[in-house]
């Protein structure tokens, strides 16, 4: 489904640009400051929603439209419905650009889009789900590969999580609403983008490295444990906040237990690549996949740590968390999706990737940019958190203190955006392109073997 991928990479470039603008505002607050439509409070939801839905969700859907039929040994259930899904989804995203910039918002994180657009997203998701389940139920390969479990899980959880976070939440107020809001925000990452990202990684890692998956059993434990554990943790966004202790404790316990599913995934991915690191060195796709795996591990070790009461008292509400969120969505799940796009686009267009070298440069720009981003915000955020806990330091001093870290962050934004533009250019040239292209990307069997 080239249209999904095409539209997702367009939004990737746009919203990464918006991200850079936002980072500049922390260095020069006056920068484009007097333009109502471009104030921080309106660009931020555009950046967040644009990346989550316009880029990542769309790219994931595009990739699943590709890999689900291959894993099932048949064709996509309905190509037409697929096209309708893209069309509707893109309309929603364009509408979202307008509503966020004009300041129309529901005022809830990740749920800023107004009701009409929420309905659009839901419909698009139903179309998507019908198509995916249609394909799976009419499959030729009887055995269900782990990517398909995650895909099915994601279709169902996304529906439930999205409806809670965008519709049901409107009937609640105050702390009750906040609890539903964090339930949604947290599970949007954990039960929408995680399973979609893992479905993609479980598919492409064995293929790209041309080895069977390390352990089928582990992948099974991982899937069932994440589906049970993840959903309990939303309240860890309000540790020390105005909610009951028992709910905080439950959220903390389950957050710590999340290490189980994460560990199974990590062992499985590294186990698959074990002894084949020479292939990673040569292939930018594998680099993205394995760097993504590493960032996934780090994110998921940070998460449980943040939820502990003592650590939370330092890092909560600081830029540390912003670094953490970017490592999850950019470092892990976007890297998986980028790898998927680099793999699939050549196959879809029947050409070699325009330039493997360019893809390699994309990787290094994003990797270095990402690391500068994460590390500067961790250090800065952690120290700011310590300063906040000393009430004798005036607040504004803790803001001034962040300046060098924010400058570093803006610089990393330039690198990341540059990487994004190279990625875009590379794929566009592959799609539309002149016949050129240096080497073949690894084309393995379309179904990964399980050991």
């Amino acid at each position: 489904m080239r249209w999904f991928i095409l539209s997702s990479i367009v939004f990737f470039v746009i919203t990464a640009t918006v991200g850079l603008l936002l980072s500049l505002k922390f260095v020069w607050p006056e920068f484009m400051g007097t333009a109502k439509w471009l104030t921080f409070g309106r660009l931020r939801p555009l950046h967040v929603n644009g990346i989550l839905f316009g880029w990542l969700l769309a790219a994931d859907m595009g990739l699943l439209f590709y890999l689900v039929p291959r894993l099932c040994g048949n064709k996509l259930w309905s190509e037409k419905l697929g096209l309708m899904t893209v069309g509707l989804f893109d309309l929603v995203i364009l509408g979202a650009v307008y509503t966020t910039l004009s300041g129309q918002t529901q005022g809830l994180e990740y749920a800023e889009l107004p009701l009409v657009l929420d309905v659009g997203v839901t419909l698009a998701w139903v179309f998507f789900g019908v198509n995916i389940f249609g394909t799976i139920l009419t499959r030729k390969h009887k055995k269900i590969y782990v990517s398909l479990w995650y895909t099915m899980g994601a279709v169902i959880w996304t529906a439930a999580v999205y409806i809670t976070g965008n519709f049901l939440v409107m009937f609640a107020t105050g702390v009750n609403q906040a609890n539903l809001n964090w339930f949604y925000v947290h599970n949007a990452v954990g039960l929408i983008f995680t399973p979609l990202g893992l479905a993609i990684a479980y598919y492409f890692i064995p293929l790209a490295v041309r080895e069977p998956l390390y352990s089928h059993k582990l992948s099974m434990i991982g899937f069932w444990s994440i589906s049970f554990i993840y959903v309990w943790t939303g309240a860890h966004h309000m540790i020390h906040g105005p909610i009951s202790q028992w709910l905080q404790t439950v959220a903390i316990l389950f957050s710590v237990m999340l290490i189980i599913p994460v560990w199974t995934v990590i062992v499985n991915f590294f186990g698959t690549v074990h002894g084949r690191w020479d292939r990673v060195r040569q292939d930018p796709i594998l680099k993205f996949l394995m760097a993504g795996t590493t960032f996934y591990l780090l994110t998921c070790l940070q998460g449980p740590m943040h939820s502990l009461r003592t650590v939370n008292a330092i890092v909560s509400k600081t830029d540390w968390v912003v670094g953490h969120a970017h490592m999850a969505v950019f470092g892990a799940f976007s890297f998986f999706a980028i790898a998927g796009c680099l793999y699939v686009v050549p196959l879809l267009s029947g050409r070699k990737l325009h330039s493997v070298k360019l893809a390699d440069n994309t990787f290094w720009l994003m990797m270095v940019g990402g690391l500068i981003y994460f590390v500067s915000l961790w250090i800065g955020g952690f120290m700011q958190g310590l300063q906040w806990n000393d009430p004798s330091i005036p607040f504004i001093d803790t803001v001034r203190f962040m300046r060098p870290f924010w400058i570093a962050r803006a610089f990393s934004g330039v690198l990341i955006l540059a990487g994004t533009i190279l990625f875009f250019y590379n794929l566009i040239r592959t799609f539309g392109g002149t016949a050129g292209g240096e080497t073949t990307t690894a084309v393995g069997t379309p179904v990964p073997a399980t050991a």
Partner: protein
Amino acid sequence: MFHKLDFNAGWVAVGALLFFLVGATLTTILPQMSEASWTTPLEGSRAYSEQELRGKAIYQREGCWYCHTQQIRTLEADTKRYGWRGVDAPISLPGEYVRDAPHVLGTRRAGPDLARVGGKYDKSWHKTHFNNPRDLVPGSVMPPFPWIVTDNGGQDLKNLIAYIQTLGRTRDWRPDDDYEE
């Protein structure tokens, strides 16, 4: 038994949904039934006026809540830092928020917490501050909001300030009642 799941899509789907529902119910539906304070406004609180609601809508529209939290957590540092003129800020209670839809608890403190800011500054301070925060607080990264000051013949500004001045007032926490207008 698990082995069968490898071949049966229906069971995977149903299982995934059931597992999810257990946690979802216990962490979202149960607390709103068991915690009365989540749905009953704090005693002595009043509903927002028309004007304050319009002000809150501006707070929502301009994304103030991305940079400001409104919650004094159960941490001593919070109560000290967000108190003013020598009086510590009282810790936030769930009942204070019941009239807020959307809620404005926030997650990020690019700027200070605002839960107890009502009455800390007077109108003219806010006017200058919204127009350009750096005129009052050099080094601030709060965006300038000149249009809030000028739009609708200054009505937007009045509404927003009216809302800001309500924050924390339910708790009536100043011993000398020294709230600014």
